[in-house]
C-alpha cells in the first residue's frame, strides 16, 4: 500500500500527532524531504486527525493581528482594495496609489498632515463669497472650493484631481461642533452642491472643508471613513 515499513509508518503517524521529540521531528522532516512516500504518509495522517480540530471552540486572535501578518508579506506595495478594514493598511496602500498618480506630494505621504493654504478674496456684503483652498503640504495643485454664501452653495472645480482607481474622493463640509456633511465627489467635473439651508454666515465662516478617500459611492452611513487627503478652512476677505 504505502510501501513503508511499520516503523516508518508509525513515525509518520507520530509526526502528524506531534509526539516525536525535537530531534526525532527534525530527523523525520529531513527524511520526508528525501522521500515523498513519508511525506504522503504524514499528510494522510494529518488529514485523518484534522477533524479533531473542528471540535475546538474558536478563539478570536487580537485586533491588529492581520496587519502584523500583512506587514511581513513581500513587497511591492499591495494594490488598492476595498476589503481592508484596517485603517493603517488602507492608509499605506492609498498613499501608494496616490503617489502613483502623482496627486499627492511625498511630503504629504510622509506625514499626511495637511497644511492649509488659504487665499483671500474680496466679497460683497452682505452675502460674501468665500473660498476654501484645500491643499496638501507641498507643491501639488490645491483644491479650491468656492463658497457662495448668498446662494448657500459651494462650487467645486477640480479638473486636475483624479480619484485613485476604484475609490472616490468625497468632499465634506464640517461646521464647528457638527458632523461632517457630504458635499459630493471630486471627479474632474465642476459641480455645485447646496449647503444646509440652516447654515448661517457665521457658521460657514467657521467651517472647514475636507476631502477623504472613500469606497465608490461614498463613505458608508454618509460619514467619512477613509484618510483625509485635503482640508482647509473657509476664509473671507
Amino acid at each position: 500500500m504505502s510501501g513503508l515499513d511499520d516503523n516508518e509508518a508509525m513515525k509518520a503517524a507520530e509526526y502528524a500527532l506531534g509526539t516525536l521529540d525535537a530531534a526525532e521531528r527534525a530527523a523525520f522532516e529531513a527524511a520526508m524531504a528525501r522521500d515523498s512516500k513519508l511525506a504522503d504518509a504524514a499528510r494522510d495522517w494529518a488529514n485523518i486527525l484534522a477533524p479533531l480540530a473542528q471540535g475546538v471552540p474558536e478563539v478570536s486572535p487580537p485586533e491588529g493581528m492581520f496587519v502584523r501578518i500583512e506587514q511581513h508579506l513581500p513587497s511591492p506595495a499591495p494594490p488598492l482594495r476595498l476589503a481592508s478594514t484596517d485603517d493603517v493598511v488602507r492608509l499605506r496602500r492609498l498613499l501608494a496609489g496616490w503617489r502613483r498618480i502623482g496627486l499627492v506630494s511625498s511630503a504629504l505621504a510622509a506625514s499626511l498632515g495637511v497644511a492649509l493654504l488659504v487665499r483671500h478674496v474680496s466679497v460683497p456684503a452682505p452675502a460674501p463669497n468665500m473660498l476654501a483652498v484645500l491643499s496638501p503640504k507641498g507643491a501639488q495643485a490645491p483644491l479650491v472650493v468656492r463658497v457662495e454664501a448668498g446662494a448657500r452653495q459651494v462650487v467645486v472645480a477640480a479638473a486636475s484631481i483624479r480619484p485613485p482607481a476604484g475609490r472616490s474622493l468625497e468632499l465634506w463640509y464640517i461646521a464647528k461642533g457638527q458632523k461632517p456633511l457630504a458635499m459630493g465627489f471630486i471627479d474632474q467635473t465642476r459641480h455645485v452642491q447646496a449647503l444646509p439651508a440652516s447654515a448661517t454666515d457665521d457658521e460657514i465662516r467657521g467651517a472647514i472643508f475636507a476631502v477623504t478617500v472613500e469606497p465608490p459611492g461614498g463613505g458608508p452611513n454618509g460619514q467619512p471613513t477613509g484618510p483625509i487627503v485635503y482640508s482647509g478652512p473657509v476664509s473671507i476677505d
Partner: protein
Amino acid sequence: MKPLQAEDHVRAVARGDRIAFRALYDAASPRLFAVILRLVRNRAAAEDVLQDVFLRIWRSAPQFDVSRGSAQAWMVTIARNRAIDHIRQNHAATTRPDDEDELAQVADPHDAEASLSDRDGLRHCLQLIEADKRACLLAAYYEGASREELALHYGQPVNTIKTWLHRALATLRQCLEGKS
C-alpha cells in the same frame, strides 16, 4: 451561487490575491488560533505562531493540492506543526506555563472530542480505542503532550506510552479504512 470555500481562497492566495488572503484569515484564524493556543498555552507565543502560520499559508498556497486533502486540514496541519515545533524546541515538556486566563476560554479537549461530527466516522472510530489509550491520543493532539509528559501522567514507562499511541493510531486507521 455557491459561497466561496476555503479552497477557493487558497487558490486565489496562490495567485497573490491579498483580498482572498484577508478573507481566508477572517474565516480560518479563530479556529487555528484556538488550536495553537491550546497547544502552546501562552497568548503571546500563540500570536507569534499564528503569524508564522499565515505567512507559511501565503508562501505555500501554490503547493496546496485539493486532491490531497481539504484546505481546512492543510491549514490545521500547518498550525499544529508550527505549534508543536514551538513547544518541542522550547523544551517546556513538564513546565509549560499555563496562561490560566487564556486557557479558561478554551474548552476541555474532551468536550471538543464530544462535539465531533459523526460525518467522518472519526468519532465512532475513536470510541473503539481503549479509554486510556484514547485519552493519550487526544492529549497529544489537543495539548501537544509529549510521550514523556504522558508517561508521567499515566505512571507508565515511556515505551509503554509509545506502544499505546501506536495501538491507538493503528486502531483508528483500521476503523477508518474499513468504513471507506
